[in-house]
């Protein structure tokens, strides 16, 4: 069997197994979920080992005819970009399960349902990155909303129903626009050699520039909502505020990447000319996201909302890297997607533990944790250092690549974006000071430090962040050929040094 298909089936098998279990045995349910996600992660690593790094063609390709009358195939295949995102998703999954061991309790539905949703979502996360048929991609893109909707609305806190609906409506709106564009593509493919949803075939369509611009916008707005890009971001803080920490990690760490992934895979591939047309506008939106997200993060009183706004700033960096059309920007953006997954996971994991212990997510309710719960405080601090892209952390490599790749073509943009690193210092150090430093305030004296399970969950995240900060080569070697391929297809070459040999 094709490895990708196997990879997608494994979580479904786990979900089935949990489905037939008696409801009462919650621990066994969790253990099966954990075992399944660990196996999926191991299989993904095996796939990554077998991946030919220098080959820019899709690998592990497989296609089954699905709805022949419309030319729809269940077609999958991965390049370097898809591989690193699948790797990130499947490595994060067991960490989410282990780190959020108890977050399924007290939900609207059973523990069993929670893990079925998580595992179904994992299958979709793999599929959305692996799909090479545009219709398949669309179906998964929309279907992913359903488990997330239930995870937020059923297991979240606070205004969880309202947040879930807001998330859903936003996403649906974007999905509709994308669907229209997909149908437009399909209609045109019929006029140019046969109806198809095959991504590679569709990328050769001839289109007038107006058509291309309109279809581009259909995709781009859907992805800009997902990513999310300013001013389409307001669903994210609400969703992150209400979701359980584990759901937030999957939402911000993985699902939002579908937006930036889609910009590369669909916007750039299908509509190269329209992409160039809209680049100036998109870069401005990305810049606004970087600075605006950072300012909003500084101004938050709630820890979960703060983390959500840092992500809006980070997604600005990723979007900027994608559209500056330099190899450093493109590779940096892809690496950024991977690194942001772990950075955000660390913040939400530790933030979630702090919140569940304290019973509040208001930053001002914490105080002096460093002397009460040193390991938890250190974990939060390191996660924060990763978020502000301290050199030695993986996020520094990707952020600097995006900045340097931007500077060679758009120096003014790069200069403005760089101010984000000062703002980042503020949005991390302010909560660090309020929550961890100072005298231990009332209500924090008796908090317990991380237990063994939590230590096991956070340790690999921090280890990956630091290891890739010093040695990102293994990932860059996978990412670089894919990025170079995109840049070349778009007809760009890196700007030469302006003061080169004279």
């Amino acid at each position, binding site marked *: 069997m094709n490895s990708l298909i196997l990879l997608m089936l494994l979580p479904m098998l786990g979900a089935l197994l949990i489905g037939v279990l008696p409801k009462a045995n919650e621990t066994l349910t969790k253990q099966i979920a954990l075992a399944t996600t660990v196996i999926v992660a191991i299989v993904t690593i095996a796939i990554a080992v077998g991946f030919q790094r220098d080959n820019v063609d899709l690998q592990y390709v497989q296609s089954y005819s699905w709805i022949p009358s419309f030319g729809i195939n269940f077609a999958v295949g991965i390049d370097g970009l898809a591989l690193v995102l699948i790797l990130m998703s499947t490595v994060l999954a067991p960490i989410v399960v282990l780190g959020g061991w108890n977050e399924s309790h007290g939900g609207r539905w059973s523990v069993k349902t929670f893990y079925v949703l998580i595992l179904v979502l994992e299958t979709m996360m793999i599929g959305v990155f692996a799909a090479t048929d545009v219709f398949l991609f669309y179906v998964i893109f929309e279907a992913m909303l359903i488990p997330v909707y239930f995870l937020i609305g059923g297991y979240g806190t606070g205004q969880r129903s309202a947040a879930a609906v807001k998330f859903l409506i936003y996403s649906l709106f974007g999905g509709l626009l994308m669907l229209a564009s997909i149908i437009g593509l399909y209609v045109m493919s019929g006029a140019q050699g046969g109806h198809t949803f095959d991504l590679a075939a569709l990328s050769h369509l001839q289109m007038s520039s107006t058509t291309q611009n309109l279809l581009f916008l259909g995709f781009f707005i859907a992805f800009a909502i997902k990513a999310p890009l300013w001013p389409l971001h*307001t669903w994210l803080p609400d969703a992150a505020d209400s979701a359980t920490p584990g759901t937030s990690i999957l939402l911000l760490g993985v699902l939002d990447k579908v937006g930036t992934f889609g910009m590369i895979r669909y916007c750039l591939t299908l509509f190269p000319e329209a992409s160039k047309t809209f680049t100036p506008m998109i870069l401005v939106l990305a810049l606004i996201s970087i600075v605006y997200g950072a300012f909003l993060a500084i101004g938050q009183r709630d820890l979960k909302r703060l983390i959500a706004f840092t992500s809006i700033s980070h997604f600005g960096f990723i979007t900027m890297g994608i559209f500056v059309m330099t190899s450093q920007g493109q590779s940096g953006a892809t690496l950024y997607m991977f690194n942001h997954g772990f950075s955000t996971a660390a913040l939400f994991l530790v933030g979630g533990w702090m919140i569940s212990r304290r019973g509040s997510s208001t930053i001002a309710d914490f105080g002096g944790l460093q002397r009460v719960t040193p390991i938890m405080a250190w974990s939060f601090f390191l996660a924060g250092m990763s978020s502000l892209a*301290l050199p030695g952390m993986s996020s520094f490599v990707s952020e600097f690549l995006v900045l340097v790749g931007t500077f060679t073509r758009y120096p003014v943009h790069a200069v403005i974006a760089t101010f984000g690193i*000062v703002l980042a210092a503020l949005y991390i150090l302010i909560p660090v000071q309020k929550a961890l430093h100072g005298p231990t305030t009332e209500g924090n004296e008796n908090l317990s430090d991380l237990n063994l399970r939590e230590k096991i969950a956070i340790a690999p995240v921090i280890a990956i962040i630091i290891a890739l900060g*010093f040695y*990102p080569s293994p990932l860059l070697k996978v990412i670089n050929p894919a990025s170079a391929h995109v840049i070349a297809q778009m007809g760009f070459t890196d700007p030469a*040094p302006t003061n080169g040999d004279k």
Partner: protein
Amino acid sequence: MTTSTSLVYLIALPLFGATVLLLAGRRADKWGHILGTAMSASAFAVGVYQLTQMLGRTNESRPVTQKLFEWISVGSFNVDAGLMLDQLSICFVLLITGVGTLIHIYSISYMSHDHDRRRFFAYLNLFIAAMLLLVLGNSYLNLYVGWEGVGLASYLLIGFWNQKPAYATASKKAFVMNRIGDMGLSFAIMIAFATLGTVSFDGVKAASEHASTAALTAIGIMLLVAATGKSAQFPLQAWLGDAMAGPTPVSALIHAATMVTAGVYLITRSNFIFDAAPTAQLLVVIVGAITLLFGALIGTAKDDIKKALAASTMSQIGYMILGAGLGPVGYAFAIMHLLTHGFFKAGMFLGAGSVMHGMNDEVNMRKYGALRKYMPITFATFGLGYLAILGVPPFAGFYSKDKIIETAFNAGGNKGIILGIVTLLGAGITAFYMTRVMILTFTGKSRWDDEVHPHESPLLMWLPMAILAVGSVTSGFLLSNGDALVNWLAPLFAEHGEHAERLQPMVVSLLALAVVAVGIAIAFFKYSRQEVLAIAPENVSVFTKIARQDLMQDKFNEAVFMRPGQLLTSALVKTDEAVIDGAVRGVGQMALGSGSVLRGIQTGFVRSYAALILVGAALLIAAIWMVTQ
């Protein structure tokens, strides 16, 4: 170039110490300080070994390199994790590990009553490792890792007692202001890559020979911005005074002898850029000149012994920056002053720590007095540092500071006259405030409370002070005898013709001594002849008031950056909720008719979902169809 396989140990040893001490936690409490000190001392031993190897080679083959692995490689942006040790970096390696080890030893005793002494040694080791990476990295990007690494260590150490809110704020302030400077370093690296296509020192040096002045000026100015942040130079100087919240050994090591001199290293290391960018070089000189006076003036009004010394550090680094801006002739003198300052200022800070140790952690000099009798060793070692910073012959500062004053005068024209006068004036003010420190602390009548019982510090503390005092006495002579340091560093810097000596060295020395004598005399009459009040007088001149408030640096930053920033932040938060999210909600309500539809979706969402998709899709397909026809 010669390759070496042992450079990495310089960094790996202290990094290993830091990692073990942090991961082992309380289990390492019993032996943590021993391991930390041993790692620092081992790095010093590797440094000495490297020096002996280097001495055995000829000038051209002295630099050694070590490539560790490929770090970042995308397109033409290729940066190796690589180290380089040359005549300049070995000076820093020995200063960092040498003074660093002494301060580790001192801290064993100084921090012995602290519950978290192990953690303190972990941070010290982390600092040593990061600082060594800063001076050993073979590219600007490698340097950047060390540059922010020392910033992290500095943050952790300033906030070592961050259970006190003021100390936590001080550490945050230092980190943020340093990041503003770091932004300059980021820009410099980006400009270097965009214009020269490389970020390694060798590559940039080679490319700078045919680069435009505009590009080099831009890089130079951005490197200067970086230097002002890390070295607490105007206008990014305001964090250093607050950084004294850290334990005193930290002030000695990081905020006097080593980290804050990184800006001088950066400019000297980038000599090939500044030599070809006169505008950037002039700005370096101006920053140095302003800061040396700025720091000195603050120093005159401080009653907190550590803050007085911090202001002095700022001022002395101003001298170094000024010297480095007078390259190529000034580079070696800047480094010489950096090394002698490393001895005498670290010695004086440890002396201040020793005084605090004997005075129940009191830092207000108005509560000192007469300590000479109770702490003779501290008095002697501090006094030797005092003579060195004043530039009294034959102490260290005499050789290094006079050379900078001399170079300033020899810059020629109005520039030379202005810089010469500024550096002389600075020397006079230095003499005033340092004499004031000496008088208030060690002489006169005692002004402390009854429960204080001043006593001399134990061996582990006074021994490092004594060793540094020996350096304060001899290092200037040793480094300048036969132009030892100048000749040692010469291969790294551009050749410079003999400058016309506008003033004879002897004349400069006499002028300097005269100005210093005036400074001492004023301090003597003001503080030794009159009774010193234990409580700072309030009816002082407006100038004193301004100087006490650090020349209004914080007021300025708060008014111009902090409050507008806070206003902007809260305005944006409100806008986001009211306007942007409001608009989205409004559009949603309009599109869906009314709020009741929203509730409908909440209850029977699956049906509505399907219906929405169908209706929306149908509309949009129609639109697309019309366009494509």
